[in-house]
C-alpha cells in the first residue's frame, strides 16, 4: 500500500537531514506502527507520504500511485490526521465534515451514515452544530479523526492519533483500526505509546536521526530475546552512537 524508496529530506539548507535514505514497504491489511524519539523524522516522513512536503530525493507510491506525479489520485486514497490541531475553527463541526465529504466526493447517504457513526463513537455528536473553536483539544482530535475516516480511505495515515483522546475513544479508535485492516485496508500511525504499538501493530518501524533503525514484527525485532519488550528494544536501538546507524 505504501512504498517508500530512498526517501531523503533536509532542512536548513541541507545541514539537517530529517529523513535520510529511508526505504520501506507497508502492505495491505497491515497496521504499521512508526516510532522514534522526538525529532527522529516521523512527522516529516508522514508529511511526505501525504504530499505536504516534497522529498529532496526518493519516490513515494500510495496504492501504486506516485505521490509526486499524480498527487490528486494518491491523496484520494489517504485519510490523514496530523499531530497538530490546526483546523478551520470558525466552521461548525458538521460544516467541516461536509467540507471534507465534498472534497472527497462522499455520496450523501454514506456520508450521513459514517458521520453519525463516528461522531457517536467518539461521543461528540451533541457538539456537531457548535463552532470548532469552542471544542476542547480532544474534541478537535476526534473531529479530525472523523474527517479522516468518512471517505473510508484504503490508507489511514495517523500522526499520534491517540493524543488527547479519552480512554473510551482511544479504545474505540484502536478497534476501528483493527476492523479497517481486516477489510484489507492499511493503517500507518506514529505513536510514543510503546505499549499500544506493541499490542496493536502487525509490524513496527523504529526511526532514529532520520534513518530506519529497525523494521519488522515484534517477534522478528526481539530476534531470539523472548522476554524483550519494545521499550527495551527502542532504547537499545535509539541510544546507539550515530556511526553505528
Amino acid at each position, binding site marked *: 500500500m505504501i512504498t517508500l524508496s530512498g526517501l531523503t529530506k533536509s532542512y536548513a539548507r541541507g545541514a539537517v537531514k530529517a529523513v535520510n535514505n529511508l526505504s520501506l514497504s507497508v502492505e495491505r491489511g497491515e497496521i504499521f506502527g512508526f516510532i522514534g524519539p522526538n525529532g527522529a523524522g516521523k512527522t516529516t516522513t508522514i508529511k511526505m507520504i501525504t504530499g505536504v*512536503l516534497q522529498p529532496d530525493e526518493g519516490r513515494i507510491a500510495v496504492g501504486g500511485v506516485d505521490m509526486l506525479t499524480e498527487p490528486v489520485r494518491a491523496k484520494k486514497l489517504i485519510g490523514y490526521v496530523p499531530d497538530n490541531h490546526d483546523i*478551520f475553527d470558525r466552521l461548525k463541526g458538521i460544516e467541516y465534515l*461536509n467540507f*471534507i465529504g465534498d472534497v472527497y466526493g462522499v455520496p450523501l447517504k454514506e456520508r450521513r451514515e459514517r458521520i453519525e457513526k463516528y*461522531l457517536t463513537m467518539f461521543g461528540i455528536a*451533541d457538539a*456537531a452544530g457548535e463552532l470548532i473553536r469552542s471544542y476542547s483539544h480532544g474534541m478537535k482530535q476526534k473531529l479530525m479523526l472523523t474527517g479522516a475516516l468518512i471517505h473510508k480511505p484504503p490508507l489511514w495515515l495517523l500522526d499520534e492519533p491517540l493524543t488527547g483522546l479519552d480512554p473510551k475513544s482511544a479504545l474505540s479508535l484502536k478497534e476501528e483500526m483493527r476492523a479497517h485492516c481486516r477489510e484489507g485496508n492499511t493503517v500507518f500511525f506514529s505513536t510514543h505509546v510503546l505499549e499500544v504499538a506493541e499490542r496493536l501493530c502487525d509490524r513496527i518501524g523504529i526511526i532514529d536521526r532520520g534513518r530506519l533503525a529497525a523494521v519488522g514484527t515484534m517477534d522478528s525485532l526481539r530476534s531470539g530475546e523472548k522476554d524483550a519488550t519494545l521499550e527495551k528494544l527502542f532504547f537499545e536501538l535509539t541510544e546507539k552512537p550515530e556511526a553505528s546507524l
Partner: protein
Amino acid sequence: MSALREYWRVLRLHARMQLGLSALGARARGGRPGKNTLRAVGFGLLMLYAVGAVLFIYGAVLFPLMRAASVLNMHTFIMGGIVLLCMTVVLFFGTMTILSLVFGAKDAETFAALPLRGQSVFLAKFTMAYAIETGMTAVFLWPAVVIYGIVSKLSAPEFLLLILRALPVWLLLPAVPMAAAALLSMVFTRLSALARHRDKLLMVFGILLTLGLVIGQSLLTGRLAPALSDQAKVEELLVNSGAWLGAVSRAFPPAGWCAQALIGTNAASAAFGYLGLAAAAAAGLAVCVLLSRHLYYKGVLAQLEAPKGKKKGFRQTGVKAGSPLRAYVVKELRLIVRSPVYALNILMGLLVVPLMVVIALSVDPSGMGASAGTEGLRAILSSLFGGSSGDAYYLLAAGVVMVTGIVGATGVSTSFSREGAMLWISQTVPVTAETQVAARLLGGFILVFIGGLLTLLALAFFVGLSAAQVIFGLVAGSCSVFPLLAVSLIPDALRPKRRWNSEAEAMKQNANSLLAMLLGFGLAFAIGILAFFLQTVIQAWAAGAAAAVVCLGVGYLIYRYDVRLVKTMMRTVDG
C-alpha cells in the same frame, strides 16, 4: 519584578516574534546567503518599491492640490485636514489592530498563566499596535509635510526646522486616537464577555464604528469648510493662515494642537500645540493603563471562552453534499464573515465605497446645495468624454465595479495567509490547484459583486444611471474584476503567512494585500487607459465591451499563472 521591567521583557519578546528578529539573527549567523535570504532581500526591495509607489501616487495627488491652495493661503487648511484624516484613520485601523493584536492574540492564555501584571502585558502589546499605526501615519503625514515645505517656499534652515517640528508630532499624533481605540476596545471586550453572540456583537461594533467614522469625518471636514457666505470671515482666512488652524482646532482640538505644533506661525502657538498634544496623549494613555489593570485580562480571557449557547447536536444539523468547488467557496465565505477581523478588513472595504458615494453625492457640508456633488460629477464626465455625459456613464458604471474589485481584492490576496497553519488541509485534500484557485477567486468575486452592485445602485439613485447602464456596468465590470482578483492572488501564492498569533497578522503582516492592491492598481490603470482610448474611436458601450473581452483573456492567463504558483507552493511550504 517591577512593572516597567515586565513591560520591557514582554515588549522585547513581541518585537522579536513579530519582526522576525531571531530569524534574521540566525540568517546573519548562517554565513553565505541562501535562497531564502536572497528571496527575503528581493521581497524587501519589492516592499520598498510598493511603499514608494504609494507615496508617489499620494504625492502626485497632494502636490497640485496644495500648490493651488497655497495661492489662496489655504495650504495650512489642507495640512490641518491631513492631520485630521490621520487621526481618523488611526482611530479606525487602530481599533481593529488593538482588537486583534491585543485582545484576540492566541498567546493571551500563555501570558495570563505567567506571573505578570495585566497592565504590563497590555502595554507591551499596545506598544506594538502603536508602532504599526505610527508607521501608517508616516505614509500620510510625511509626504504632506515635505510638500507643505516645498509649496511654502521655505529656505533650507526653515525646511530643516519643519522636519524637526514634524518628528515629535508624528510620534505623538497616534496617541489620542490610539488611546480612544484602546478604551473602546477594552470596554467593548469586557461587555461582550457577557453576551451570547460575541463575534456577531463585535461585527456590529465594527460596522457602527465604520459608519460613525465615515459620517464623522465628513461632518468634521464640513465644519472645517468656511461659511462662504460670511465675506469678512473669508477675507480673514485669506490673509491669516492662523485662522485656518483655529478652524481645525474648533473641529477637533487634538488635531488643531497637532497642526499648531507642526505649522503654527509663532513659537507660542507651536509650544501651545506641543503642550496640548503631549497632555492629551499622556492623559489618554494613563487612563488606558489604569483601566487595563482591571479590564484587560477579564476582556481578553473572555474572548477565549466558548460563547454560551444552545447545544446543537448532529440530529439538528444538516448533512449536505456539493462539489469541491462549492465546498471551497462556501468555506471561504464562512470563514470571512465569521471572523470579525476578516469581515471588517474585507467587507468594510466593500461597504465604504458605496457609502462614500452616498455621502459625496448627498451630504452638503458647504451649503452649496445637495446636488452639488452630482452636478460636479456630471460636469467632470462631460469634460472628460466630451459632450453628453450619458454615454460615458456606461464606462463609469464598469469603472466603479472595477474600483470595487481593487478595494475588495483583500479577500483573495490574503486567502492562503488566512489559512495559515491550517494550510495542511488544502495540501492534503484531493482537490486540484485549478479548483482551489478558482474557488478563491469566485469567493472574492461574490463579495466584490455585492459591493459593486450596492455602489451602482447608489449611483443609479443619485446620478440617474439607467437599468441598462447598471447591467452593463455589472457585466463589463465583472469581466474587468477577473484579472484584478487573479493578479491579487500572486503575492499570497508566492509567500503565504504560515504562522500567526492573531488574525490581524494574517491580514497585514506579510503586506500581501498592499502588494496585491498595487498590482491591481497597475492593471486597472492599463484597462482604464485602453477603454478611454477605445471610446474615442467607437461608442462608449462598445469600448467597455471590447475592454471587458480583453480583460477576460488577460484574466485567464493570470489564472493559469496562479495555478502554477499554487502547485509549487502546495509542494514547498511546510504544512
